[in-house]
């Protein structure tokens, strides 16, 4: 391990952030757009070195969709704690940022910034796949700074 310096690891890790997606009470519109960016050859997020992973413990960049409903609040916050530091949080769609059309509902615990720090916002309802790629690019720059 000592043969490979920490700065070398940081440099190569910065080129390949892993994404983890949390649906915190989204209508699924943003999740469909995320699937589009990930799986359609037309948008292909893996060109940027990103890959979706199935466990929060492997994640570097956290993608959050949805309003943070009162029912999932505790589970989402527990998942957020499981993502190792340093991490970058990206809010996808207007819901995590402001609540969108669900704002001030009795079932909504958000906005997210009351509970966890958000680094990049990608507004839209849902945002275009290109807009998601553009926002992820900003997140990757932040991630490279932090690691």
């Amino acid at each position: 391990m000592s043969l490979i310096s920490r700065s070398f690891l940081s440099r190569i890790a910065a080129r390949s952030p892993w994404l983890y997606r949390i649906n915190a009470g989204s209508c699924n519109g943003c999740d469909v757009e995320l699937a589009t960016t990930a799986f359609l050859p037309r948008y292909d997020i893996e060109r940027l070195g990103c890959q979706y992973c199935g466990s929060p413990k492997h994640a570097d960049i956290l993608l959050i969709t949805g309003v943070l409903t009162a029912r999932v609040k505790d589970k989402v916050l527990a998942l957020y704690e499981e993502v190792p530091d340093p991490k970058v949080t990206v809010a996808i769609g207007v819901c995590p940022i402001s609540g969108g059309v669900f704002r001030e509902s009795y079932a909504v615990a958000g906005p997210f910034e009351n509970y966890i720090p958000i680094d990049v916002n990608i507004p839209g309802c849902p945002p275009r796949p290109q807009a998601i790629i553009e926002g992820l690019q900003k997140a990757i720059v932040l991630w490279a700074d932090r690691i």
Partner: protein
Amino acid sequence: MWYLPVLLKNLIEGPATESFPFSEPRTPATTRGRMSFSAEDCALCRMCARVCPAGAIQFGKVDGGQSFTLWHNSCVFCGLCAHYCDSKALKPIPDWHLSHTTDATYDMVEEGQVFAQKCGGCGRQKMPVSEALAHKLYPEIEDKAEIAALRTLCPSCRKSRLATRDAAA
């Protein structure tokens, strides 16, 4: 053998992947992106704030008029405001470059200030009337000079001007 044309097409056309973000993105001209507001055209009817499902549009008071604020971080791109805007002051434009870091969250607004005008007839304060709104109000008038003259008047002066014209005709 059915794959041969596909193979040939792929060889000629190259990959299907869009090269964005390494080059300019391809945006169709009809894309409904963010809303754009032109303060010159607004008649301050405030219908947009009333119909906005996300409550993204707010009006506030400024000296001699009102301020318009649209929060891009709340707007859901439904286009209801543009649909109900008779003055054509609000319209969706094909700009979707809205992603930002959190420090810019409260800068993501579309702003404008609309001021009351003086009526050309009686001198009282009146709301501005955009050209689109004037054409909607008076579809039978095609004379551009007449429309321009009507736009400078308050509703009651417009009424008396049109009544005088009708009486003369």
